[in-house]
């Protein structure tokens, strides 16, 4: 990658850009999608869809499709690095199947890319979340800004 920084200038001190290896696998990250966790989601997001707590077209209650969407990637990154200074820059999700409440959701990911754009460092994580029976429920791609610290912009930035 042709990222550009001043000699010795490190933007993200918590996640040194050089330490990120494209292709490195992350996870799995597992979470129980419990009734309590979904109820907390519904309260926090003020989303009272009855499908999340009772009968739904899929039978019983299902998790909100955005449950942990865009968060699992940070948990995956956090399994290798200190991710507390990172920021979500882009997120994309493809829903594949509903996830019944009460099941574990397992997310596996990989570092798909890293780049510098306008003096800021990013990492790209692709991931797939599965129900505990192995059914894929969501595919995600997240671009994560490693730090709001900014370097001088140079023509060597590898994305514009």
């Amino acid at each position, binding site marked *: 990658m042709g990222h550009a920084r001043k000699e010795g200038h490190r933007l993200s001190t*918590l996640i040194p850009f050089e330490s990120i290896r494209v292709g490195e696998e992350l996870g799995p990250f597992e979470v129980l999608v419990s009734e309590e966790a979904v109820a*907390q*989601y519904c309260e*926090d*997001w*003020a*989303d009272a*869809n009855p499908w999340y707590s009772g009968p*739904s*077209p*899929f039978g019983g209650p*299902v998790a*909100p*499709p*955005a*449950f*942990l*969407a*865009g*968060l699992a990637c*940070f948990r995956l990154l956090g399994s290798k690095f200190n991710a*507390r*200074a*990172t*920021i*979500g*820059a*882009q*997120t*994309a*999700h*493809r*829903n*594949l*199947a*509903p996830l019944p409440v009460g099941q574990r959701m397992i997310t596996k990911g990989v570092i798909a890319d890293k780049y510098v754009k306008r003096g800021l460092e990013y990492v790209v994580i692709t991931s797939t979340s599965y129900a505990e029976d192995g059914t894929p429920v969501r595919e995600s791609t*997240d671009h994560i800004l490693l730090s*709001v*610290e900014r370097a001088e912009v140079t023509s060597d930035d590898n994305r514009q």
Partner: protein
Amino acid sequence: MTTVSEAAVPQPGDQLPGLAKTVFQRAIAEREFSADSIHNDDYTRAHGYPGALISAYVLAGYMSEPMVSFFGASWFSSGELALRFIGKGVQQGDKVTCGASVREVQAGSPPRVVFDVWMEKADGARPVLGTASALLGGQS
């Protein structure tokens, strides 16, 4: 401007009713964050933001809700949401509206409806932009 009826095949330019929310992230309400965290008011203000930044996953949850309402069951198995987080971000307690306007209806059986989506703050800024789409079927 027309408002989409759930029973009709929407047309480009049709808009979903705006979904109003008061932004809340439990972690910001209940925890203290380190001096180099984007959830720390002092740190983010020092870098030009109005205050601690709400996490992307929180905003994605808000943006997903109107798609569940419109597409119903189909959103769970064919929904696609792509968002960019830009500008000064979103802060705790912000009053926002999630909007969606039909960009195109892709032919197929069933057709796929593609929306341009956004989150708008009270001052008119749009810190979240993107697209959302799903197959038109199984609506609630």
